[in-house]
C-alpha cells in the first residue's frame, strides 16, 4: 500500500480553483456562450510589441487564443469563451508565471462597453459563488480614463510616453492605487497602445480599450475589436519592424486570421487572467497562493 500524505493547503487551492472554474462555466452557460478550444502550439503567434512566445518544436506555445477565437467569430459564432493555459516567455514574479490560466470571451454584436457590463456581472457571480469579498465586488466600479489616472498622481501621460517612462510610472506610481476600495476600469488608452483594438469612435487618437484593476492588480484587458484587415495588417507590420529593430523574434503574419477579419462582426473581447481573478477574490498579492503547483 502506498503512503499518502495530506497537504491541507494544496487541497484548499484545488477546491477554490475548481469552484471558480465551475462558476465561470455556469455563468457562460447561463448566457448561452459556447466554450471553444483552439490550438496550443501556433505557427503564427500574435505579433505584439511586448509579449514573447515560448518556442515549442518548430512552433510557439500560444500567448493568447485571440486570433483563433476571432476566426470562429468570423465563421459565424456570436458568443464564445475559452479557459486554458497560455504561455509568455520571461514573465515570472510574485504576480507572474510563464504558464498561466487565461479566460477569453468575445461578444458579437458588441463592443468594449458590452464586455464591461458582462465583466461586472461575472466578477460579482464569482464572488457570490465562492463567498469571497461580496461587499467589495458589489460596489459600483470606478471608471477612470488613463490620462486622469496619471494626472491624479501629478503625472502627464503624453510626457511619460514621450520620455519612455510609461511602464515605470504606471507600475510604480499609479497601479498600486487602482481598485483599492472598489474595482477600477482604466479606459481610453492612446491609439499607439491599441494592438488589436479599434480606435474609439469619434476619438481617433484613442483606442477602444480598457483594463480592470483590483487591489492594484491588473486582471483583464478588453477591446472593442479591430475589424479592418488593412489597418490590422499595418499594425502587425509596424510591430514586426519594432521587434526586428530590437533584435527580438519576429513571428510570421497570420494570413488566415487577416483573411478572416473581413467577416469579423462588430464585437468586443477580453483576456482575463484567472489566477489573478482568484488572487483578487482571496485578497492576496502572491500568485503562488492560488496555484496547485506554485514552484513549477
Amino acid at each position, binding site marked *: 500500500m502506498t503512503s499518502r500524505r495530506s497537504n491541507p493547503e494544496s487541497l484548499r487551492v484545488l477546491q477554490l480553483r475548481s469552484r471558480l472554474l465551475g462558476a465561470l462555466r455556469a455563468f457562460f452557460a447561463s448566457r448561452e456562450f459556447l466554450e471553444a478550444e483552439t490550438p496550443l502550439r501556433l505557427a503564427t503567434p500574435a505579433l505584439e510589441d511586448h509579449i514573447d512566445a515560448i518556442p515549442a518544436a518548430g512552433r510557439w506555445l500560444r500567448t493568447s487564443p485571440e486570433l483563433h477565437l476571432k476566426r470562429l467569430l468570423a465563421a459565424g459564432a456570436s458568443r464564445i469563451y475559452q479557459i486554458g493555459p497560455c504561455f509568455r516567455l520571461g514573465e515570472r514574479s510574485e504576480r507572474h508565471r510563464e504558464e498561466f490560466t487565461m479566460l477569453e470571451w468575445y461578444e458579437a454584436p458588441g463592443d468594449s462597453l458590452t464586455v464591461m457590463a458582462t465583466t461586472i456581472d461575472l466578477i460579482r457571480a464569482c464572488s457570490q459563488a465562492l463567498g469571497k469579498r461580496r461587499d467589495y465586488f458589489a460596489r459600483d466600479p470606478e471608471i477612470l480614463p488613463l490620462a486622469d489616472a496619471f494626472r491624479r498622481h501629478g503625472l502627464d501621460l503624453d510626457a511619460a510616453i514621450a520620455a519612455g517612462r*510609461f*511602464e515605470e510610472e504606471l507600475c510604480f506610481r499609479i497601479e498600486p492605487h487602482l481598485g483599492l476600495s472598489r474595482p477600477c476600469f482604466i479606459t481610453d488608452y492612446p491609439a499607439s*497602445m491599441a494592438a488589436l483594438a479599434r480606435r474609439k469612435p469619434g476619438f481617433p487618437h484613442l483606442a477602444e480599450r480598457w483594463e480592470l484593476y483590483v487591489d492594484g492588480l491588473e486582471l483583464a484587458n478588453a477591446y472593442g475589436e479591430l475589424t479592418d484587415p488593412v489597418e490590422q495588417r499595418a499594425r502587425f507590420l509596424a510591430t514586426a519592424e519594432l521587434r526586428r529593430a530590437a533584435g527580438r523574434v519576429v513571428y510570421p503574419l497570420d494570413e488566415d486570421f487577416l483573411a478572416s477579419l473581413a467577416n469579423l462582426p462588430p464585437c468586443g473581447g477580453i483576456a482575463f487572467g484567472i489566477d489573478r481573478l482568484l488572487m483578487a477574490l482571496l485578497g492576496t498579492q502572491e500568485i503562488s497562493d492560488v496555484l496547485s503547483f506554485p514552484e513549477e
Partner: protein
Amino acid sequence: MATFGVEDLKKGLRLKIDGKPYLITEFEFKKPGKGQAVYRCRVKDLITGNTFEKVWRSGDNFETADLESLTVNYSYENGDDFAFIDQNSSEEIVLTRKQLEDKWHFLTDDAECELLLFEGKVIDVTLPTWFYAELTTCEPGVRGDTANNVTKPAFTKTGWEIRVPLFLNQGDWVKIDTRTGEYVERVANPNDIKKK
C-alpha cells in the same frame, strides 16, 4: 567582456555600470500585460558601499563585473605598507595604510582576511570579526560611579580610540568588533592564558 540582458537580473548578481562594480541587493519585476517589462532594483556600489534605486527595462544590457575573492593571511607591516599572503598562490599582496582605511588598527599576525578584487584591484577587505587588544592608554576608573552607559575614552597600542566602561583600566584587554571599530567586552589577557 561578457554581457547579459535585463532578463538575467536577479538578487545577488554583480554587474558593472559606468566602469564600476555593483551588487543587486533587491529585485522586483513588473510588467503590464501589454506593456514593456520594468525591473526595479536596489543596487549597492561595491567600492563606496552606498545603495540606490535603479529602474531598467527590457532591452537594457549589462556587463558582468570582473570580481574575485581571495583568502589571505596578514604577514607584516613595513612603513605604510601591509603585506598579506594569498593562501592559494602563496604570493604576497601589499596594501597601503590608505587602502585599509581604519582597518590597519585591527590586524593581528597571521589573521585570515578576505580581499575583494575588481579587475585585479583590491576594493574591499574583510577582517576576522573580533580583534583583541590591550588598552595602552586609559584613565583610571572612578570608584563608586556605577551608572549604566557611562563610558570613558581609551586607546589601543596603534592609537585607535574606543569608548569603554568606567571599570576598565590601562593594561586590560578588550574585544573590538572590526566591522564597527567599537568595544564589545572585556576579555582575559591572552598572554596570561598562554602561560597557564
